[in-house]
């Protein structure tokens, strides 16, 4: 099927988007398009129906009643001056033109590319203890981001929220220089009332929590339960050797109370 022949739905509200999505089995969701449009142009994706989220009223950042809520279609650029460590990750994603178009929802939901990791915002949101509100065949539900990342294929992400409380945070990453830098590996950490959360993007197709390090606070435990994967950016061997150093930087920033 040619791209021009794909049936395109453009919902005008969140309710219309949920209705058009249905059980999600027969519709490709396009938010900013920065991840899926190259796949479509290259012929690797050929949906029969697609839903464009840009006019569905899902682009917002709201801070109220002790909660920060971010709509699925919010551009990454809107997060650059927000809470850490999400803001630092957002500032390093691609370049300004792409950040103005790429969305939070795409970053969390798009299938990982085989060649390079995607999902730079996932690790920061995991350490912010983010919750995801989504819709699907069994209706609407809210669940931890960690649960959602494992099963997002048939869900329409509506928004992400986290508690608006003080945290000490850290973020450290390595990038492969290109016209826009590609993230090889990134570590996010946040401490809230003495409880530490640590997560990494680039070790696996989706971001993962590093629970052993959360318990011990020792970068030497970086590889406990972790098997870094290979892709076109770097080998698992290389990532395994980068991880302790990045952890050390992120944990030092937490200890110093710096962003």
């Amino acid at each position, binding site marked *: 099927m*040619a*791209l*021009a*022949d*794909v*049936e*395109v739905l*453009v919902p005008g509200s969140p309710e219309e988007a949920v209705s058009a999505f249905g059980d999600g089995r027969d519709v490709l969701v*396009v938010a*900013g*398009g*920065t991840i899926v*449009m*190259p796949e*479509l*142009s*290259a012929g690797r994706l050929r*949906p029969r129906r*697609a839903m*464009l989220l*840009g*006019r569905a009223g899902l682009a917002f950042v709201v801070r109220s009643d002790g909660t920060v809520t971010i709509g699925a279609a919010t551009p990454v650029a809107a997060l650059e001056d927000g809470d850490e460590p999400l803001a630092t990750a957002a500032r390093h994603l*691609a*370049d*300004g*033109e*792409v950040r*103005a*178009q790429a969305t939070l929802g795409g970053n969390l939901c798009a299938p990982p590319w085989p060649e390079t990791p995607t999902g730079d915002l996932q690790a920061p949101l995991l350490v912010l203890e983010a919750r995801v509100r989504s819709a699907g065949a069994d209706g609407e539900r809210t669940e931890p981001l960690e649960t959602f990342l494992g099963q997002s294929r048939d869900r329409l992400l509506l928004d992400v929220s986290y508690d608006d409380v003080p945290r000490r945070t850290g973020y450290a990453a390595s990038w492969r220089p*290109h*016209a*826009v830098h590609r993230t090889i590996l990134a570590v996010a950490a946040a401490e809230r009332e003495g409880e530490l959360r640590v997560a990494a993007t680039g070790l696996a197709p989706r971001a993962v929590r590093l629970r052993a390090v959360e318990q011990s606070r020792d970068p030497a435990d970086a590889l406990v339960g972790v098997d870094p994967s290979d892709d076109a950016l770097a080998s698992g061997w290389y990532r395994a050797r980068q991880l302790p150093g990045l952890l050390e930087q992120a944990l030092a920033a937490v200890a110093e109370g710096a962003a």
Partner: protein
Amino acid sequence: MRLTVDGVEHELARPGLATLLHVLREELAVTGPKAGCQQGSCGACTVLVDGAPRRSCLLPAAALDGAEVATVEGLGAAEHLSPLQAAFLEHHGFQCGFCTPGFLVAAHALLERSPAPSRREIEAALGGHTCRCTGYLGIVEAVEAAAEAGGAAR
């Protein structure tokens, strides 16, 4: 759907999931935006959508009903170059020219929002654009000269 390109309004049949770049080049014969990497990495296809620089290879045209698109072809003409285009010519801001439409459009947007940008601002605004001829110094100097000569005025 309606799309205004360089001041000319067009009625488009259903574009499906075709990119804005495809519609511009293949349907409207506006070939200033270039099909480079077609995955958002090079910037050769950058156009202005309602005044903001966007990679046209990443944008589904169907999302742009009613939008105003400006390409390099709307910035000036051969007989009447914009200050920015004239500065690119004077400061050797291009070699093969393939990346030039994207650089010009992105630099134009920068000068519209920041008429006297610092070198760091220029580098940040153009940092996602690739010049395979590596003529970056001339490009940055051209933008600085254009700012001194009157900014982005068409």
